């Protein structure tokens, strides 16, 4: 693999960039692999990468029905933070966040991780209490977070209206090393590094059936033919239910549309990521200048990647109330992605009822931030055949045991 | 009961159409089997009126009866008569399976007047507000802006809107804003 660097660019500039090679190979699938991962989103690619890098397993294929990174990884609002309340969540999200810190160097691909800081606004007394609870927990979990007052919020985000008549900003939970990354680059960087290790990424190859023998997985059928494998990883986010049905089991998951939108680009206006949960909206500004805004999820099952417009309205309303100067900006584009929501809104990593078939899903509205950690853990889990330290708590059996990992509790319920 | 006050205390606004707090209004929620003759007899005895067809509101001298759902009516009487009307209905239906409850104080009522009442509501209700979508005499339960509301036209220039009491002043402000002079889209030509 050709190393990327400023020198390489300078050299190529001289010959009009005709010398750059492919970022990843476009292989024809082999008949069989040790491990097949279904889904070339961030999680699938990261799983393959760490299988190769951490466990020396390189006879691996990642099979993708569309184009790599084209699922939710390519359509999310890129917020990265790890200030989760529960120990299990804090552990895996912080692992992911810390891997993001050096991911560009690991992959030799600039994923533009931008630890600009994430603010979660507290706009009710109740929210203050919830965030303080997280602050206390994080301090003991080794996650750097702080609850800050309205003045500091205003200093970090001068365009914010802190004394809004309806929901004044009472403070915020601040994770200074949270931030964003260039979402496509995360997928591309992993893909390039995987390809370089000899892992095959097979695009435009839809899995149509899962084959099993004696209760264990034996291979897959795809639009590019059959591929056999010893171990299979399902890493398909919104399509998890469809794949699970092929594998013969059901999941505690529903697939719904989640939407986002961008404004037209403007000069730098907001330097951190702001999430406002009471009024429902989150916002950051991309390195290109557009405001990237996330909205609410629909409440009904949907596979169309189109959501209902009222979520856009609600989000924009909330954000104008919080950042009045955006009222005269314009929405450039809106889109949707299909997210996989579990019964407790936490992910699932681990074994499935089908032997040698593993699953990583249920990241719902928040799995971009988890990509490196999830890939790390899923790779270890698949390599060993049993959940690693991070995955242990996230098995599917937790539902029937009643052992939820519920992150919404910090927000609690209104009283 | 001179101490009793409606939410906006009789406020009114004159814009593209007139908006007024219609004051206290007796309202009774009656749930029961609408096909049951005893029930219609009780309604008749209490109000002088028969049952409305689905989605309709029927008006008489002593009040009105609105269809709210397959097992629910809203009965309108004078504010001061609500309790006694409930009692009357309860007596008439004794032993039956039903629920009659005075909800007069839980509501705010507004009267809109003028050409353009349909357009004012169309600024906030996801409803076909054309005469064919909502004919005179039909009640629609839906949303206005972000709150629940029910409304009907008694003729092309008179609309009554009922909402919950706690959001009464919000709805009044909303209606006045929507009825600002010069802001109604003309729907012809």
């Amino acid at each position, binding site marked *: 693999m050709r190393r990327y660097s400023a020198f390489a660019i300078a050299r190529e500039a001289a010959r009009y960039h005709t010398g750059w090679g492919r970022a990843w190979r476009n292989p024809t699938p082999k008949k069989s692999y040790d491990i097949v991962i279904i889904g070339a989103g961030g999680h699938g690619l990261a799983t393959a990468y760490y299988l190769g890098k951490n466990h020396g397993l390189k006879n691996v294929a990642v099979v993708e029905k569309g184009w790599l990174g084209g699922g939710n990884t390519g359509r999310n609002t890129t917020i990265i933070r790890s200030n989760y309340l529960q120990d299990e969540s804090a552990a895996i999200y912080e692992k992911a966040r810390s891997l993001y810190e050096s991911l560009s160097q690991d992959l030799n691909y600039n994923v533009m991780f931008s630890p600009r800081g994430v603010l979660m606004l507290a706009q009710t007394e109740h929210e203050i209490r919830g965030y303080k609870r997280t602050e206390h927990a994080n301090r003991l979990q080794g996650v750097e977070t702080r609850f800050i007052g309205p003045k500091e919020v205003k200093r970090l985000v001068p365009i914010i209206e802190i004394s809004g008549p309806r929901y004044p900003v009472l403070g915020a939970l601040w994770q200074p090393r949270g931030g964003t990354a260039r979402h496509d680059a995360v997928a591309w960087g992993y893909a390039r590094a995987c390809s370089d290790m000899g892992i095959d990424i097979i695009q435009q190859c839809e899995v149509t059936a899962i084959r099993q023998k004696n209760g264990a997985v034996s291979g897959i059928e795809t639009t590019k033919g059959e591929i056999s494998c010893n171990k299979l990883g399902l890493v398909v986010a919104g*399509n998890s*239910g*469809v794949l699970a*049905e092929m594998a*013969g*089991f*059901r*999941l*505690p*998951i*529903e*697939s719904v549309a989640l939407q986002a939108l961008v404004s037209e680009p403007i000069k730098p206006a907001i330097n951190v990521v702001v999430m406002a949960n009471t009024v429902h909206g989150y916002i950051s500004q991309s390195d290109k200048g557009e405001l990237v805004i996330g909205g609410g999820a*629909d*409440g*009904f*099952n*949907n*596979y*169309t990647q189109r959501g*209902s*417009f*009222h979520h856009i309205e609600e989000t924009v309303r909330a954000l104008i109330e919080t950042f009045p100067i955006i009222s005269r900006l314009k929405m450039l584009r809106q889109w949707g992605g299909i997210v996989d929501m579990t*019964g407790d809104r936490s992910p699932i990593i681990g074994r499935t009822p089908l032997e040698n078939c593993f699953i990583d899903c249920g990241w719902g509205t928040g799995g971009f931030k988890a990509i490196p950690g999830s890939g790390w853990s899923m790779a270890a889990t698949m390599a060993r055949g049993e959940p690693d330290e991070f995955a242990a708590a996230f098995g599917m059996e937790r*539902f*029937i045991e009643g052992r939820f990992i519920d992150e919404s509790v910090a927000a609690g319920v209104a009283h | 009961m001179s101490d009793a006050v409606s939410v906006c205390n009789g406020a009114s606004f004159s814009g593209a159409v007139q908006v007024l707090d219609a004051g206290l209004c007796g309202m009774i929620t009656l749930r029961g089997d609408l096909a049951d003759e005893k029930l219609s007899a009780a309604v008749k005895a209490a109000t002088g009126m028969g049952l409305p067809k*689905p*989605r309709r509101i029927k008006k008489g001298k002593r009040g009105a009866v609105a269809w*709210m*759902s*397959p097992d*629910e009516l809203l009965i309108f009487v004078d504010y001061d008569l609500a309790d006694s009307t409930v009692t009357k209905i309860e007596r008439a239906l004794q032993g039956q399976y039903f629920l009659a409850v005075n909800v007069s104080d839980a509501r705010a009522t507004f009267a809109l007047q003028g050409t353009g009442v349909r357009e004012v509501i169309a600024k906030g209700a*996801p*409803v076909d507000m054309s005469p064919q979508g909502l004919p005179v005499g039909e009640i*629609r*339960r*839906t*949303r206005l802006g972000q709150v*629940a509301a029910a409304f009907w036209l008694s003729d092309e220039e008179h609309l009554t809107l009922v909402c919950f009491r706690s959001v009464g002043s919000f709805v009044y402000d909303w209606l006045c804003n929507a009825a600002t002079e010069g802001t109604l889209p003309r729907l012809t030509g």
Partner: protein
Amino acid sequence: MLSLHCPYCGVDVDETDLTPGGEAHLVRSGSGSDDADFEAYLFMRKNPRGVHFERWRHSFGCGKWFHAARATDTLEVFGTYSAQTKEPPQDVQERIRARRPDWKGFGKGDRI
């Protein structure tokens, strides 16, 4: 932006007047039920890419729950019907079959 016909009010209702309620025709497993049934009832969902039976409430209108047969891949609605049924009415099933010849049928292929 969905629009569903409320079988009680007889009008087409904007999605924003409705509240979605997830998969329909689940069988409640209460006290005494075994783990598998209870898990299936409370957590496991068909979540199909295709024909789906689901619950909706006309919450800003008559307040009634009803069921809808809807395709999750095109958002086509095959019909709405009373919530007080254990399975979709025949006419709705027929309409689905007409529109989706490959549909397995209600409750078919459920035993996974």
